[in-house]
């Protein structure tokens, strides 16, 4: 389970080579200028990163969830923001491939898996975040169409994506009245809010997605009416361990920078790494990341196997790894002293980027709610 196969080593090496040339040299500039590098995402798509754990039938790479978390960790070492967007895109493509019919899959998966078209996941609303089942975007059946009205909040890729996977209310029956609908970007009545000003994740756009009498063919519905909440949650199981892996990558990059810095920087007559207090910090950071990595791989293996405790393990892994990644990055910033606070050294960006991983894909409080409820369930 923990030994990487030759294929996994080769895939991770490829991702490292790709990200080292196409992503990391530009990531500070993209962050500063809020540039969403669609061209680089297309290139990632040609390498198979647009449908990592999507079946090969319509152009996915057909890899395992374990492969995926190794890939996301490596991508995030170069840039957590880009890695995280690719993770969200993969979640959308997988949902369409897993729950779509043959026609839908044939129409949408090839262009999404190649990242010629990007995907956005639209669940959260201005008034419904953690309590997602309370969402209020309406989809009213009218002949062969649904008519959509409502607003989605904090949508990654909005404005740039070609397809929006929208969870909308088709009946007033709580989580059972939610339906998943694929909305192409070119439909009349679809518009977007301004690009949000954020603490981090600047290299991907975050906007509201606004539906005003958007007519979507019923043929764009994923699965049965009322099955949308379950589809959304199944997508999130994978989404959670992928975002967890992105935190591991960011944290690992921060740790690697810290080790290099402490070896080089001198104070009080020696290198910083010769101070035991700081060496212990490194030990704690390394241990915290490895502990989290172990749990993420365990959750990925459970998801691959379809194990009964998948939801529990994915929630635990998401919480532990996103906390670990942020803590390690924050400690790394402290170890760099004043330089950690300067943009030029790259630490503060990692801290800003990883902070949101504790909030999204289900906040870490919701992860505790999931784990707690399952723990006390009869």
């Amino acid at each position: 389970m923990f030994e990487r196969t030759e294929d996994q080593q080769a895939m991770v090496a490829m991702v490292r080579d790709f990200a080292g040339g196409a992503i990391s040299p530009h990531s500070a500039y993209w962050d500063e200028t809020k540039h969403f590098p669609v061209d680089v995402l297309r290139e990632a798509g040609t390498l198979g990163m647009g449908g990592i754990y999507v079946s090969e039938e319509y152009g996915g790479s057909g890899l395992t969830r374990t492969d995926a978390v190794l890939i996301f960790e490596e991508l995030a070492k170069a840039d957590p923001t880009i890695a995280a967007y690719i993770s969200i895109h993969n979640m959308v493509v997988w949902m369409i491939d897993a729950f779509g019919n043959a026609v839908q899959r044939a129409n949408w998966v090839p262009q999404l898996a190649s990242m010629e078209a990007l995907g956005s996941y639209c669940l959260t609303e201005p008034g419904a975040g953690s309590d997602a089942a309370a969402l209020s975007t309406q989809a009213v059946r009218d002949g062969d169409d649904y008519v959509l009205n409502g607003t989605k909040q904090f949508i990654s890729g909005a404005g740039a994506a070609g397809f929006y996977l929208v969870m909308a209310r088709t009946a007033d029956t709580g989580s059972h009245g939610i339906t998943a609908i694929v909305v192409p970007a070119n439909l009349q009545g679809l518009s977007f809010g301004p690009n949000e000003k954020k603490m981090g994740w600047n290299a991907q756009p975050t906007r509201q997605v606004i539906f005003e009498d958007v007519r979507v063919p019923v043929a764009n519905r994923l699965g049965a009416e009322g099955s949308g909440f379950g589809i959304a949650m199944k997508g999130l199981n994978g989404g959670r361990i992928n975002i967890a892996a992105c935190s591991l990558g960011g944290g690992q990059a921060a740790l690697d920078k810290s080790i290099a810095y402490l070896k080089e920087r001198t104070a009080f007559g020696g290198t910083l790494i010769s101070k035991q207090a700081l060496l212990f910090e490194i030990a704690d950071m390394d241990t915290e990341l490895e502990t989290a990595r172990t749990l993420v791989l365990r959750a990925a293996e459970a998801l691959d196997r379809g194990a009964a405790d998948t939801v529990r393990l994915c929630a635990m892994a998401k919480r532990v790894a996103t906390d670990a990644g942020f803590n390690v990055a924050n400690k790394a910033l402290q170890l760099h002293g004043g330089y950690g606070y300067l943009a030029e050294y790259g630490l503060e960006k990692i801290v800003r980027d990883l902070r949101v991983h504790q909030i999204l894909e289900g906040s870490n409080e919701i992860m505790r709610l999931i784990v707690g409820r399952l723990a006390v369930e009869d």
Partner: protein
Amino acid sequence: MKIVVLVKQVPDTAEERKLDLTTGLLDRDAGDSVVDEINERALEVALRVKDANKSTEVVVMTMGPDGATQALRKALSMGADSGVHILDDSLAGADTKRTAAALAAGLKVTGFDIVLAGNESTDGRGGVVPAMVAEHLALPLLGSLVSAEITEGAVRGVRQGEGGTLNVHAALPAIVTVTESSAEARFPNFKGILTAKRKPVTTLSVADLGSADLGSAELGGAGLTGFGPGADARVGSTVIVSTTERTARAAGRKIVDDGTAATELAEFLVANRLV
């Protein structure tokens, strides 16, 4: 069309590269081994021909120890169709002359319309093997091209030198080498990595090469770019007289500007032929 690309496994240039001072051979344990980047560029030239015409067959050939299979797998993951591994203990430590003879013999076995290679390896940097292969096969060599256009029956390319640009061409079969200015190599995609394992790799021993004039194992001297710890010192015809470690760098001279620094700097640059 059948294109054979010659590839070599070399130490990663990003890591420390060391010679074993007792054998004079490369210390393969000092760092990771990778496909020479220049060979990836040669492969890219071949793969672009294949992109345009799917009936093109791209074969990658290497000579090296067991571990060199990894270099072939990398090339296969990028899109080559099959691999040929010239593997024989008696070739350990082979110098450029012997390597060229073995590769030429291997090429006779596989057959080809055109052979592509890098202009020089990043480790040995001899830059002579492709020319020697061309001599063995009595074929034209189009060396050090910055671009190559391969069509049925012919190859055209551009060679840039300090003195000017040459447009060269030859009828096939021919041997072509490319420089680091040629097409940037693609990354293997995930599918390529997964299917590389299933692609055929043929192993050729010296006996399989049949012929040939692979040089005598009795000649003295270890190979300059030979491979393998424990390589036999008798297998090459190149004689290595001695191997020493690079001397540690000493501190340079500091020029303090008392008004003549510019002159002193200029004199230093001229004296060391740096301008």
